[in-house]
């Protein structure tokens, strides 16, 4: 029997050949937790009787969700993580180093074919490099710290094939929002998603992370971008599904027909073309997060705002996904362009996406965010409305003071 990528990766980690529906205990390559989930995991690890983590070099703690600490309560949770990491010898990324998923990929802590268990729902991002990233909660993560293993049900897989190519100014975010419009918010629950097709093969690593990141918004257990066309900064054997693997469902889309997309409040799958809502007033514009805080995202925004200034009624916030992203954006002039246009930089990290600090919207305000979730209250205020869009759409909207189509800015030429 031919295997999907999740069947292959789980087989390699369970020590036997498995197929969708099987229940297995699998060996884990890496465990990761953030400052939202690590404190509870550390407590559960202790309650389980844990004294030493299974393999310190494979246990990663990241201070990113509320970093630097906005208050004493959170500062003390960060201190608890530092103390645990020092005692156990775990890998610790300090406040300001960046977002967990960005760091895992950027530092090469996740490689093709790996099985990574992360106490963060966007752990599925690692499918961009052909690794199986599965999100869990704190107690499941504590069990991995203790045993180096987890239990899994091998998922069915939905294949998504995107033909053609994305037009200039149309981003990977638009592609994945378009897919979410097809699946809905629960359409891939318990499933794996595999993204294929010419439009996908052209995507950079950064864009592939954007696509894989949002598999969880369809409810998926994990999501992979087929490695055709993937360029990694290190040599590795690509993780490939069998060509005739069995898929539960196939969704086919034409990349050329995808335009800038927008998720309406209060659910990521309420997707419409940006053109449907051009003119809706915007108060806060945010570019950042694990889905769209990378160099290419900042560059796309800079291309649109260069030499211009954001609308006086809009605050534009930029949260680089990591310090390395920030440094690269400083060195290539992107930061200067954005700052000159009126953008405010916040520290590398999750920023206002999790509603804790760094740009909470006010009552009745509308946010256009390059993030991945727009649930009611997501950014800290249930009386605000959040639109999700690509970094290009966020930048165009920040200039206009209302939702705007980046293809109408004159910054993107149609290629022959």
């Amino acid at each position, binding site marked *: 029997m031919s295997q999907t990528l999740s069947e292959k990766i789980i087989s390699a980690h369970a020590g036997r050949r498995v197929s969708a529906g099987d*229940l*297995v*205990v699998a060996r884990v390559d890496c465990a990761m937790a953030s*400052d*939202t*989930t690590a*404190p*509870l995991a550390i*407590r*559960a690890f202790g*309650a*389980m*009787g844990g004294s030493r983590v299974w393999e310190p070099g494979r246990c990663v703690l990241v201070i990113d*969700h*509320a970093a630097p600490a906005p208050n004493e*309560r*959170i500062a003390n*949770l960060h201190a608890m993580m530092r103390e645990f990491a020092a005692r156990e010898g775990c890998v610790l990324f300090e406040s300001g180093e960046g977002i967990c998923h960005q760091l895992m990929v950027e530092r090469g802590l996740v490689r093709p074919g790996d099985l990574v268990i*992360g*106490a*963060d*729902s966007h*752990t599925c991002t690692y499918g961009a490099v052909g690794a199986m990233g599965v*999100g*869990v*909660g*704190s*107690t*499941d993560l*504590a*069990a991995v710290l*203790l*045993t180096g*293993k*987890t*239990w899994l*049900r091998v998922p069915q897989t939905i294949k998504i094939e995107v033909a053609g190519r994305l037009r200039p100014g149309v981003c990977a975010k638009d592609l994945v929002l378009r897919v979410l419009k097809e699946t809905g*918010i*629960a359409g891939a*629950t*318990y499933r794996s998603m595999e993204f294929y097709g010419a439009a996908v093969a052209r995507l950079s690593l950064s864009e592939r992370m954007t696509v894989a990141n949002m598999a969880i918004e369809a*409810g998926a*257990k994990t999501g992979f971008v087929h490695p055709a066309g993937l360029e990694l900064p290190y040599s590795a054997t690509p993780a490939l599904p069998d060509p005739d693997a069995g898929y539960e469902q196939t969704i086919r889309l034409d990349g050329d027909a995808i335009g800038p997309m927008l998720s309406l409040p209060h*659910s990521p799958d309420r997707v419409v073309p940006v053109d449907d809502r051009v003119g809706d007033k915007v108060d806060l514009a945010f570019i950042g997060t694990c889905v769209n805080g990378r160099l290419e995202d900042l560059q796309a925004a800079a291309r649109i705002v260069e030499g211009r200034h954001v609308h006086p009624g809009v605050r534009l916030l930029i949260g680089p996904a990591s310090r390395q992203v920030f440094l690269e954006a400083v060195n290539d002039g992107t930061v200067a362009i954005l700052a000159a246009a009126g953008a405010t930089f916040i520290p590398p990290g999750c920023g206002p996406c*999790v*509603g*804790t600090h760094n740009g909470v919207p006010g009552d009745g305000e509308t946010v256009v965010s390059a993030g991945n*979730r727009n*649930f*009611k*209250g*997501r950014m*800290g205020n*249930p009386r605000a409305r959040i639109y999700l869009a690509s970094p290009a759409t966020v930048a165009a909207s920040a200039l206009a003071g209302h939702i705007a189509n980046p293809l109408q800015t004159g910054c993107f030429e149609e290629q022959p």
Partner: protein
Amino acid sequence: MSAGHIRGRAHVYGDHIDTDAIIPGKYTKTLDLTSLAEHVLEDLDPRFRDALQPGDILVAGVNFGCGSSREQAPLALKAAGVAAVVARSFARIFFRNAINIGLPALEAEGADISPGDELVLDLAGGTVENLKSGRVVTATRLPPVMLDILQAGGLVEYLKRYGDYRLM
């Protein structure tokens, strides 16, 4: 009520209740479960907290608990006194988290439950009985490993007892 049975009053909500609705992200950075309980479901229904009696049962539609991996969501429900959650379907991370912390979560359709109905959940038998209507429906069977974890009282107790995962 015999062991393995939960009897409680239903609080009924709709589809796709996300983890931000269960416990907003701004309250999650804590180890104080009481503070989580104070804010449970506050953006969805500000009256829920006051209406809830310990031992009540939360009933929802499809995809309950979608979104974040925050275990604070089932912890907030449990700390507030919710004895179990019955939904037409669950988002997978929430479902694992609920079982892992010992909050029974039953996937059942067609139970036709109205707010205030008295329910009896048979965890071992996997049934949901509505005492008001007399209707009994069968819940989706838990995988054996999850049943073991729930019976142990959660994943912490399970691993304390067995030291490792056991699959039937």
